[in-house]
């Protein structure tokens, strides 16, 4: 299902776009507070707007804040390239990137920038729509053309175009509490004009807030695992899992130092996976051997995975 450029080690990216004040930061804050073990890199223009509880801050520099739950907030500060470089340095400690775009550049261009960047793979493209302003913004002298372009891109008119397969598009309506149900319905039918299919193909779950929600499950195990058994377990992982990542301690009978336990980095993307020897760099090598994998899916993840 992926094109060849989706490398196993690429960090998946959710691009959150929308005009000033549309609710991008609110959305990002929700994802952060509902992380369920997913270690996010949040790339925003201004940290100041994120609700970061001081107690959660593990370390900070001028351009990054590391949180105790493993997430990192990184300031774009006009320099997307430098910020992406920074996140890439930390890639093996991260699971997913939330990227805030100000919505005043051609969305196709930002998309290309992320796709072209080694180490990143665009997986979700979310447009946040302020229902109270969207119709007037689309007529705005300065940004009307960008707004329209965003809405067209969010509702791809050619489902078989090359990008649709590996990028999920979604919209989320914000400030709906400020309008009557009838007014919202009016905005929705107006939005539908940007979709040439003129029919929402979203399921109910997505309609509610417009975006597929993540379900995650963390699988942990103390002590070593046998590599063959572990590989067999990987083959049983179902297609609903879109990504899995983490460190595992495996004993490999085929290795020259037969029976020795080694730490591996598992990268798993929709059925394709790699195990990379990763003994260095982890303080855990001296502590208890604790394998930890995070599974990410758009559907609820069954209990059976944890019962390995």
């Amino acid at each position, binding site marked *: 299902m992926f094109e060849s450029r989706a490398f196993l080690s690429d960090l998946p990216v959710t691009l959150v776009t929308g005009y*000033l004040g549309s609710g991008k930061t609110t959305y990002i804050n929700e994802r952060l507070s509902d992380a369920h073990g997913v270690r996010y890199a949040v790339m925003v223009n201004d940290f100041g707007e994120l609700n970061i509880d001081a107690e959660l801050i593990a370390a900070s520099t001028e351009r990054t804040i590391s949180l105790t739950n493993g997430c990192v907030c990184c300031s774009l500060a006009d320099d997307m390239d430098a910020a992406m470089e920074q996140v890439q340095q930390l890639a093996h400690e991260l699971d997913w990137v939330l990227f805030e775009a100000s919505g005043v550049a051609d969305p196709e261009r930002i998309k290309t920038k992320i796709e072209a960047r080694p180490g990143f793979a665009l997986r979700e493209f979310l447009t946040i729509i302020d229902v109270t302003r969207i119709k007037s913004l689309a007529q705005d002298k300065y*940004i009307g053309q960008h707004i329209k372009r965003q809405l067209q891109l969010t509702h791809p008119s050619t489902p078989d175009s090359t990008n649709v397969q590996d990028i999920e598009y979604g919209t989320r309506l914000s400030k709906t509490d400020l309008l009557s149900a009838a007014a919202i319905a009016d905005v929705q039918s107006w939005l539908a004009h940007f979709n040439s299919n003129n029919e929402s193909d979203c399921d109910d779950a997505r309609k509610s807030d417009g975006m597929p929600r993540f379900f995650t499950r963390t699988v942990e195990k103390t002590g070593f695992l046998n590599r063959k058994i572990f590989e067999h377990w990987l083959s049983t992982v179902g297609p609903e899992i879109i990504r899995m990542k983490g460190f595992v301690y495996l004993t490999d009978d085929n290795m020259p130092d037969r029976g020795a336990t080694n730490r591996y980095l598992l990268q798993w993307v929709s059925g394709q996976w790699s195990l990379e020897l990763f003994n260095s760099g982890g303080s855990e090598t001296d502590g208890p051997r604790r394998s930890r994998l995070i599974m990410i899916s758009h559907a609820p993840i069954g209990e059976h995975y944890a019962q390995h």
Partner: protein
Amino acid sequence: MITIFIAKKIITMTEAQPEATAVAVRDGIILEVGSLDSLKPWLEHDEYEIVEDYTEQVLMPGLIDPHLHPIMAAVLLPMQFITALEWKFPWEIVPATTTREAYLSKLKTGHEQTPKGEPFFTWGYHRNWHGEVNRIVMDEIFGQRPAVVWQRSFHELYLNTAMMEHLGIEEEQVKGRPQIDYEKGHFYENGLSFAIGRLNKIIMSQAWLGKGLERLKKVVHYGGQTTVGDMAVGLFDFNLEWEAVENIIDQPDSPFRVLGVPHARVMSHINGGHKQGVEFAQTLPERNTNKFRFSNKIKLFTDGAFFSQLAMLKEPGYVDGHIGEWLTVPEEYEVIARLYWQAGFEIHVHCTGDLGLELAIDTLEKLQSEQPRFNHNYTIEHFGFSTPEQIHRIKRLGANVSANVYYLHELSDSYGHHGVGFERASEMARIGQCEREDVLLSLHSDFPMAPALPLNSAWVAFTRENCEGNIVCPNERVSLDKALRAITIDAARILGLDDETGSIRAGKKADFVVLDQSPYDVGGAGLKDLEIMATVFEGEVFPISGT
């Protein structure tokens, strides 16, 4: 001690006494301009010497480029130039290299002359002349030496295997990516950004930038400039830039002063908010020295890069239907501009397209109605595309224009074919109307985007001749006088330094440029061929070697 410069002609750029033959200087300040005879009252009160080196030459006020980027120039200038067109530098004249054989042989020579262990960087490669040069070709020439071949447009480069290893770029990381060709070592557009991120450890190092700024000093001098504007301090890194410019430019051997205009967005970022940014910008003049200073000026941006066709256009937009980009969200632009306006700053705003310009003008109109100001020096920088109606509004609102006329020289032809069509392409840099409406106008290079040669810019403004040799929209030419004012007194006004420099009159700094002939004698078409013999900065002569 008084120094008297006598010349065949002194062009003062003042309306009261446009021409003279002698100028008396003491402690870097002009005492009087006139004739040897008229200066006598001064000579009775002090010792004096007469400089007779330039009796056959012409003196003008030192030239002014109000908008260039020292730090960008510092990144480029240490590279070896191997180019299809001749480039004149004070340290070398780079001859045109127009064949593949000659290009490859230059690379070999460059490799042999570069000390062991140092990387090799060249700029100026162009496939049309130099054929295919890629990683395989480079590996044969450079062996184990890390090397970079940078394309003339800045938008693409090639790395050899040794450089990729040096930078830690691995095959599995980049193979199959759009805009990167691993086999050929080719990185372009977005792929280029990735490569630059890795190259920064070399080209943003103190040693590299130091070398580049030393060369920039020579470039500025060579163009006859005694004052330049650094029109976005903080473009890469505010503290690093301030320190580098302060350490290297503020030296006795620099024959010019730099007015630093800080980058508003950077002020906000490093101080944690727009308000704090304004407060910080207000403290910057405390750091002033004679040669590098800040004033009450601030740099803002509306729309994207002209060279990348990211200017925001009004209807009918680009021929291919793409849209440009905003560098500042329009609502946010208004917020930031208002804070600086209310704090009494003079706003310089980067605008490339007519919609970008529209935002700048609309905002000025709002600010004027909220809190009227006179003499506010709100200045449109670059001035790519505009409409005639916008120039009326610029005039009525009291704004200035600082134009990069090199756009029309380099791009009017190609943007006609591939961009916006011929009508609008030919009317880029609508400076003729600025003259007709008496809008204050300066010309700038945006170096390294265009050569830092003000006389060359004035020649483009006067002739509107593009690189294909076509005269584009002759009705938008300016007069010789307007063109010369735009690189002297009017440029000084735009930088707010007109009480100090930009013309030759009693009380100003003794900043001159020495020319072989008078621009008024050779006429506008001859401006680019005038020879610059020397500059005088605050009374001190700095000869230009090789002339």
